[in-house]
């Protein structure tokens, strides 16, 4: 759900890119955050909590709260609410606390 018209703001978008989230192809714009692209595509559940497996989305959107951690291009625990989107990124829900490679 992207805002089409806004009374005050004019959104400058990067070029359209494709990436994958849990093997599904998603469209987004280069340079926006991964979280913004996922949300625009209707994906709110990013992972499940390590112990009680409760669904997790982002909460703060500015890199404070760690609720949005995902695996990006093989790197675990990436704060996707601040990580800029690039073409071809492979984004995955990580299980548990993630594995540092």
């Amino acid at each position, binding site marked *: 759900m992207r*805002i089409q018209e806004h009374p005050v*703001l004019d959104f400058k978008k990067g070029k359209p890119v494709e990436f994958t989230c849990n093997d599904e192809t998603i469209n987004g714009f280069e340079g926006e955050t991964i979280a913004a692209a996922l949300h625009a595509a209707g994906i709110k*559940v990013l992972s499940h909590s390590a112990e009680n497996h409760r669904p997790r989305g982002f909460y703060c959107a500015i890199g404070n709260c760690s609720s949005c951690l995902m695996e990006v291009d093989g790197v675990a625990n990436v704060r996707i609410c601040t990580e800029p989107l690039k073409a071809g990124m492979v984004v995955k829900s990580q299980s548990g606390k993630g594995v540092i490679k």
Partner: protein
Amino acid sequence: MKYVEVLVVGGGPAGLCAAISAAESGAEVLLTERSSILGGQLIKQTHMFFGSEKQYAGTRGIDITDILIDKVAELNVEVMKDANVLSVYEDGVISIEQNGKYMKVRPERIIIATGASEKSLAFPNNDMPGIYGAGAVQTLMNIHGVKPGHDVLMVGAGNIGLIVSYQLMQAGVNVKAILDASPTIGGYLVHASKIRRMGVPILTRHTVKRADGNDSLERATIVELNEKWQEIPGTEKEFDVDVMCVSVGLSPLSELLFQSGCEMKYVREFGGYVPLRDSNLKTSLDHIYIAGDVGGIEEASSAMVEGHIAGLAAAMSIDKQHPAFESLYKDYQEQLDSLRAGHAGDHIRAGMAKASL
């Protein structure tokens, strides 16, 4: 190891102004910002600021950012973006991670301007996707142009709750109601009446009883509170919403200050633990200064003024005196006094009395 005269941590309104004033005093400044853009939370403030002209009243937050960034670019300020300050050691060395590289910096003075983070609220299922900080929703809408959902319940009728509700409607999102547990609206009445005119009820003495949904938020149950802030049974109401914005205050992001070993104190009026400071915004450690929300939750206007004071004072302490130090310093202190005057500043003045060295 890199050596600098003044390190400013955080590129929001406070940090930008601190860097400007320290550099204008003749100090060599390094400014670090963890994100890829400068401006902090100013970059999503589409509303016009209050206060006086000196703090850019009448200008939208997004435009203030550009004014400050342009000033920084003209000065002797090295800017490091995507740079996370990881630690502040006892000997004054700090470590930074940038794009996967680790480095150490030894500054003569450090100005911590790391800002604040949004608080959460305790109720069953408060961790469900669809429940966001109000500032998070503002980031999503105003920076990325993405709607948070269709129907929103806003929790908190302070200025952030009111302003974000208005901005949600500007973006074409339906705001079903605004709640606040307190008996009165905390934000400016000018914002509240604008929202009421648009037909959104503001329910004071109400709180969230629970949230429900299958994987993400679908329904919120609210309840009325009595004068003792206890739930009144039978007053529950349900709202079908896919978004809840929690705007119940902020707490200072003071981890680096704790690490540094400066004297900290819990000050309720300031939203959490804050460093003790003198009128120059110097902490109990001679080489560490603060500016903005990290020292106590306030407004962007006062964060900018504090930034200028900390920048001038930190530079002065290493013999870099601004040519107009006396008059600027006096003017900034007077601006702070006037921003904190009157009834609206009562809690800030109370906090200041507890947090002063």
